[in-house]
């Protein structure tokens, strides 16, 4: 019982250390993102590329859409969206990177997880940009709600889900045919 308590304390301390490291890493990477150098050489080109990719996908079914820099515009309605900070998926990617680095795992798994995870996060972000582009033309109030609240939460949920899937693929995760841990044991080891 004493050993179990000691083990639980150690695990709790380790979890808090990891959380603190995660928060510090997110703040550091976010600070790095805000530097003029990162904005010029990474964020701006990426945001422009995101507008181009989204427009390329949209033109498969709607030819009246153009992209100029980070702005996507409809030639028929005149409506346009500009992809700004917070909507380019960079912050979500930073959180994913920090979460995978902060979690103890072999570097090979971290790199594989990051590659797949970034594709998943940015893929959903493209869906966000395209959906907002059409929501804005349909109803501005709905666009505002989706833009400011709903999609922000969904993107972070995507990051969390990607991280959960990645954690489940790490060495040490049990086979799915094995029975789940008894809740009491799991609680004791938390």
């Amino acid at each position, binding site marked *: 019982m004493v050993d179990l308590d000691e083990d639980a304390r150690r695990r709790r301390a380790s979890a808090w250390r990891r959380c603190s490291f995660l928060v510090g890493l997110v703040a550091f990477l976010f600070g790095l993102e805000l530097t003029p150098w990162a904005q010029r050489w990474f964020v701006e080109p990426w945001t422009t590329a995101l507008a181009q990719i989204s427009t390329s996908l949209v033109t498969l079914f709607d030819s009246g859409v153009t992209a100029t820099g980070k702005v996507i515009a409809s030639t028929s309605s005149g409506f346009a969206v500009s992809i700004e900070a917070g909507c380019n998926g960079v912050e979500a990617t930073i959180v994913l990177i920090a979460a995978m680095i902060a979690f103890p795992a072999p570097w090979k798994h971290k790199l594989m997880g990051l590659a797949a995870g970034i594709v998943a996060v940015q893929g959903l972000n493209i869906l966000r940009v395209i959906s907002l582009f059409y929501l804005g033309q349909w109803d501005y109030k709905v666009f505002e709600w989706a833009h*400011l609240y709903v999609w922000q939460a969904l993107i972070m949920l995507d990051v969390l889900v990607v991280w959960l899937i990645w954690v489940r693929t790490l060495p040490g995760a049990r086979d799915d045919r094995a029975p789940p841990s008894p809740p009491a044991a799991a609680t004791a080891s938390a």
Partner: protein
Amino acid sequence: MNLSSPTGTARSPLARFIVTVLLWLPVTFAVWYVVAPVLMFAVRILGMLAVLPLGDLVSVIEQKGSALVFVTTLRAGQSAQAGGLVSVSVNGLLYSFGMPMFAALTLAAREPRRWVILALGVVALLPFVTFGVVADFLKNVAITSGPLVASQTGFSAAQREMIAFAYQFGTLILPTVTPAIVWVVTHRAFLERMRGLTVPR
């Protein structure tokens, strides 16, 4: 994981969890929107404490629904007589939209005492919402309001840089990251059980 197959969904606890979260989200967003004025009342109290170190910069924080209005002692005009006092309205919803996500995750996890965890989690998130709201207010008076108002605040260039960073961090990172972290911290047992079950092949 096979989301398209009913059998696959039933087999994979992670897929089932994700679907449940998505089903809870519309409900939690609706509840959050309705109770936001109550949450903002708590944020207003915390905000009044947070601006205490700023001296007499803020005379009062008023609440209008989900918006908090910071009434300052700053003059909008050049002379002491010119212009009224500067007020800054901040939309509290912009900084608290992570709460419905936290609620959906907590309710979908179906852990014992989930309503207690939900209540404690929301309380734990309030200071971070306050941080975003206050940083938004400071960004307005110290940076975007123009030199006439900004000069009265007495912030140095370094302090303005810090305010700009705090605003960006409080807007782009904290509203989404803190609910996720609070959820992970409060659901370690759930996550360990989830990790113990790999995706069905």
